[in-house]
C-alpha cells in the first residue's frame, strides 16, 4: 500500500549499505519466507530463530536440533519450516504452536533439503555420500524414496565416475527436482517416476555447492567449487509435449574474479532475478552482478568479517548475510531520502526556479459560506471504501492468504541465559566490549546516528 505514495521505484534496486545488524547466537544460515516478512536463521547450536523483518525482533525460537543447522526451507503458506542439521536429522516445524510437526532421521549427514513448493508434506534432501532422498511425511511414519545421482548408463557409453548429489531443489511447479553432483553434473529428475530425465556436465570436475532458482523458476544459478558462478535458462519442463531428449539448458553468464581467484561462498538471485549476489571465501565484500550485461555493479563493503550465507529478500532490495566469525546477521538495504515536500504540502520540490503565474481568481475574496457550499457541491464523486484495488505493487493474495504468525510475549526470558553458555558450534565466542550481552541485539542502522544511539540506550536501560 505504501507503493501508492512512494517513488521507491525510482530508487536503485540493489542494496547499498548496512541498515541493520541482528544477532541471536551464531547464525549459520538464513532464509526468507515467501512473503518476505519473516527470516528464519539457523544457529550453530541447533536452534532455529524466526525474525520479524518489520520489527527486526525475534518472533519465535525453535529448539530441537543439537547440531549446526545446514539448511532451511519454508512452505508456501509460511506456516511450516523445514530445518536440517548436520546431525542426520530434519525437522518440519509447525509455526502455529512452534512444535515439531514431523521429524525425520537419515542414515547420513544432510547437505540440504527443500520443501515441495506446493505441498508441505513432501521434501527432498541431499545426503552426504549416499543417494538423495524424496521424503513423504503425509503420515507420521515417513516414506523415503532414494533418487539417483547419475543417469542410467546407455549401451556403449563409459561408466559415469562415482559421484554423489550435493545440492537439490524443486522446480517452480514441484514436478521436477534439480540436483547437482560432486563431479559437476546437473540432473533433472521427474518426481513421479523418480528417474533422471536430463543430465549434463556443467562444471568441469568440481563440486557444485548450491543451486538457486528465481521465483518464476525460469533461471537457475549454480555455484561450484571452481570459482565460477553460472546462470542458466531453465526450459519449461511442465510443457505437455516435453521430450526429454530435446531438453536444453543454455548457459547465460559466468561470473568469476579472475584476478583474485575468489572462491564463492554462497550465491543468491535478487528479488526479480535481475541481479546475482555472492559472498566469497576469505573476502569481506559481497559482490553484486547485473544479469543484463553480466557486469559487476557493486561490491558491498561491510564489517571486517567474512560472510558466507547470503539471502536476498523476495521483493525488496534487501540482502542478508551471516558473518562467519560473530554469527551476526547483517542486513544491507537502501535508505530512501526523506522528501521534504511530503512534510509540507504547500511546497513542491523543483529542479530549477519556476516563475509562478497566479490564476485569474486566485486572490478573489469570497464569503466563507459560498466557498464551503462550493466545496461540498464538488463532492459528488462515487467512491468505494471497501473494494481492494488490485495491482498496486505486490499481488495482494500472497499477503492475505499468508499464515498469521502468533505474537509471543515470553521470548525474552527464555533466551539470554543459555545463549551465553553454549554459543556457537566449535567456535569460541569472544567477549569484546562492543559485544552486547543480551541474547538478541539489534542495532538500528538509521541514517541519523544520534537517533540510533538513543534507540540503543532505551533498549539497554
Amino acid at each position, binding site marked *: *500500500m*505504501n507503493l*501508492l*505514495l*512512494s517513488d521507491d521505484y525510482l530508487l536503485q534496486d540493489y542494496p547499498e549499505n548496512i541498515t541493520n545488524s541482528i544477532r541471536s547466537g551464531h547464525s549459520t544460515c538464513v532464509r526468507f519466507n515467501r512473503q518476505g516478512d519473516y527470516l528464519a536463521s539457523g544457529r550453530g547450536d541447533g536452534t532455529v530463530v524466526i525474525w*520479524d523483518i*518489520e*520489527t*527486526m*525482533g*525475534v*518472533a519465535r525460537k525453535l529448539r530441537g536440533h543439537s547440531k549446526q543447522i545446514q539448511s532451511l526451507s519454508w512452505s508456501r503458506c509460511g506456516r511450516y519450516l523445514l530445518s536440517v542439521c548436520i546431525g542426520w536429522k530434519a525437522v518440519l516445524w509447525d509455526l502455529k504452536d512452534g512444535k515439531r510437526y514431523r521429524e525425520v532421521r537419515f542414515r547420513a549427514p544432510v547437505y540440504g533439503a527443500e520443501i515441495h513448493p506446493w505441498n508441505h508434506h513432501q521434501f527432498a534432501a541431499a545426503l552426504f555420500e549416499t543417494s538423495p532422498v524424496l521424503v513423504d511425511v503425509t503420515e507420521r511414519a515417513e516414506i523415503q524414496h532414494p533418487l539417483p545421482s547419475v543417469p542410467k548408463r546407455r549401451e556403449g557409453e563409459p561408466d559415469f565416475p562415482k559421484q554423489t548429489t550435493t545440492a537439490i531443489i524443486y522446480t517452480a511447479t514441484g514436478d521436477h527436482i534439480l540436483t547437482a553432483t560432486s563431479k559437476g553434473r546437473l540432473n533433472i529428475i521427474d518426481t513421479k517416476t523418480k528417474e533422471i530425465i536430463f543430465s549434463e556436465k556443467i562444471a568441469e570436475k568440481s563440486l557444485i555447492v548450491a543451486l538457486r532458482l528465481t521465483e518464476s523458476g525460469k533461471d537457475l544459478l549454480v555455484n561450484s567449487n571452481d570459482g565460477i558462478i553460472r546462470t542458466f535458462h531453465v526450459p519449461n519442463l511442465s510443457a505437455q509435449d516435453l521430450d526429454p531428449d530435446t531438453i536444453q539448458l543454455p548457459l547465460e553468464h559466468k561470473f568469476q574474479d579472475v584476478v583474485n581467484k575468489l572462491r564463492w561462498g554462497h550465491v543468491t538471485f535478487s528479488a526479480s532475478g535481475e541481479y546475482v549476489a555472492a559472498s566469497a571465501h576469505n573476502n569481506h565484500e559481497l559482490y553484486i552482478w547485473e544479469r543484463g550485461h553480466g557486469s559487476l555493479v557493486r561490491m558491498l563493503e561491510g564489517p571486517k568479517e567474512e560472510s558466507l550465507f547470503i539471502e536476498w529478500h523476495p521483493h525488496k532490495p534487501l540482502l542478508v548475510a551471516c558473518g562467519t566469525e560473530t554469527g551476526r546477521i547483517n542486513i544491507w538495504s537502501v*535508505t*530512501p531520502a*526523506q*522528501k521534504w515536500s*511530503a*512534510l*509540507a*504540502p*504547500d511546497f513542491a520540490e523543483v529542479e530549477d526556479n519556476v516563475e509562478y503565474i497566479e490564476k485569474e481568481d*486566485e*486572490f478573489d*475574496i469570497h464569503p*466563507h*459560506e459560498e466557498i*464551503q457550499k462550493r*466545496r*461540498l457541491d464538488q*463532492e459528488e*464523486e*462515487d*467512491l*468505494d*471504501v*471497501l473494494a*481492494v*484495488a488490485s495491482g498496486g505493487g505486490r499481488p*495482494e493474495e500472497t*499477503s492475505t492468504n499468508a499464515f*498469521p*504468525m502468533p*505474537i*509471543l*510475549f*515470553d*521470548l*525474552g*526470558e527464555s533466551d539470554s541465559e543459555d545463549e551465553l553458555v553454549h554459543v556457537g558450534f566449535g567456535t569460541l565466542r569472544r567477549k569484546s566490549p562492543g559485544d552486547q*550481552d*543480551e*541474547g*538478541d541485539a539489534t542495532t*538500528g542502522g*538509521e541514517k541519523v546516528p544520534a537517533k540510533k544511539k*538513543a*534507540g540503543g540506550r*532505551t*533498549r539497554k*536501560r
Partner: protein
Amino acid sequence: MESTPARYSSPEGSNRDAHDRTPPSRDRLQNQSLSIRRGRPSSRSRSRSPLNSSPSSPSSKKRYRSTSSSRSSRPQTRSRSLSSRSRSRSPDSYSRSRSISPSRSRPPILPDYRPHLTLKGHTAAVSQVRISPDGKWIASASADGTAKIWNASTGAILDTLVGHMAGVSCLAWAPDSNTLATGSDDKAIRLWDRITGSPAHAVGGGGRGTTRGGPTGKGPLLGHHNYIYSLAFSPKGNILASGSYDEAVFLWDVRAGRLMRSLPAHSDPVSGIGFCRDGTLVVSCSTDGLIRIWDTSTGQCLRTLVHEDNPAVTNVCFSPNGLFVLAFNLDNSLRLWDYVKGSVKKTYQGHKNEGFSIGGGFGVLTDADDGYKVEEDGDHKIRSRPFIVSASEDGDIVIWDVVKKDIIQRITQAHKGVCFWVDVNGGTMASCGQDNVVRLFRHRPSHRIKREPNGVSGLIEHAGNEDSPDIDMVDVELQQQIEAEAEAASPGQNVKEEEL
C-alpha cells in the same frame, strides 16, 4: 491540565449547550484547538493564499453559527435524504438486485442500530470503547484510571484492568483479540492479556538490570514524555503505534516491548493514529491540523494532508480498503481524504464536534448481519454496505452514507453529555460518553422485521425515531440481571490488583 481524570468530567446534568459554558476542567483538546485558531492566522497567511487567511476569529465564529443553523434546518435535509432513500430502494440503484427475480429481491441494507445493553461500572467518564476484532469482547477506557473488558453478547464485566496511575485515554485490541493495549495520562502503555486480565508483557527480556521491566518483567511500555492519547495495532499485531501529547508517534515492537522507532510527527498533541490494512502505512493526526502518512518500514513521512481552513484534527483512520483516510475535524465535520491525490472527497456534517476529541469510524453491514443466509451463488453476491459513524458532542450517534453523505441513522441522546467514542463491528455498535456508561447497540435485521412478535417494531421508520431512544430492542431482563450482578459484586471487588 494535570488533574487528568477530570478531563472529561463536566457539571452534572450537562446537556447540549454544555460546550458554550466552557467549564474550567474542559477538555484539553479544546484549549489546544482554540490556541491554534487564535495563534495561527499570521503564520498561515504567509503560507497560504490571503483568501484563507482573512477569516480570523469573528468570521470563524460565524462559520460555526452557520453550521448550527444548518443543524436547525436538519429536518429538511432529512426529509430530502428520506426521499432519496426511498428512491434508492427501487431496484435500479442496486445494480445487483436487478438480476434477482422480484420475489427474491432484497431491500438495500440500511443500518438500524437499536439500544441493547447499558454497561455500568466506570466511576468517571469513559473516553474510548472498542469492540474486539472477533466481536466477542468490548473494552472500555475510562478517566477513572481503569479499563474494563466486557462480554459483548451478555454485557457481563469480565475484568477490570487496574495499574495505570491516571486516567486511561485510549486502548487498542490486538488483531487476535487476546491482547489489549491501554494508554494513559501516566505516560505509560500497558499490554494486558485478555484471558487472565493481567499484564501480558515481558518487557526488556526479564532481567539483566532492566528497570523498565520491573521485577516480574511485566512492566508497561515507557518512553513517551507526556500523556498517551492514541493507540493502534498493526494488522499482524507485531507493531503497536502510539501517539502522545509529546507530539511524537512511537512504533513499538510488541513482542519485545521495545521502542522501534520514534517519529517526530507533529507540533501539537498527536490525537489519532491508525494503520492501513496491509500495515505498510501509519496515519497520524494532530490538533495542529495536519494529517501525516508514514511508511512503517522506513519511518518516513510520505504525505501530509492539510485542509485549507486548517481545522484541528482529533481522530483519524483508514478506510477498510486503505485507499482513503477519514479525519474528524473540530469544525463539526468529518472529512474523507483521498491521500494519494491529497484532496477531500467527502465532507460529512450534521453532528456536533467543536471542542472534544470524539471518535468513530467505518462500519460495514453485510447480508449476514441483515438476517440473510450467506451463500454466494449466481444471483446473490454477498452485499456489504459501508457507512460512517461518529459520536457527537450533544450525546448523539450519527451514521452517514459514505457516498451520498446523508444521515441514514441518528441515535439521539445515546449519552447524557458528550458521547466520546463509537465503535462498530458488524451488527454490534458500542458507544461511551461523559455519563460513565458504555452502551451497546444491535443492528436490527430488516429481514426479520415481519417475524418480530411485537408488531410495533416492524413499523418503526428508520430515521424517524427522533423523539426518544426506543427500547424495543433493549433486553430488559438481561439488563436487570447485569445490574443485579454489578451490585452484588460491589465496586472494587472484582478488581484484579496488579503487582507492581
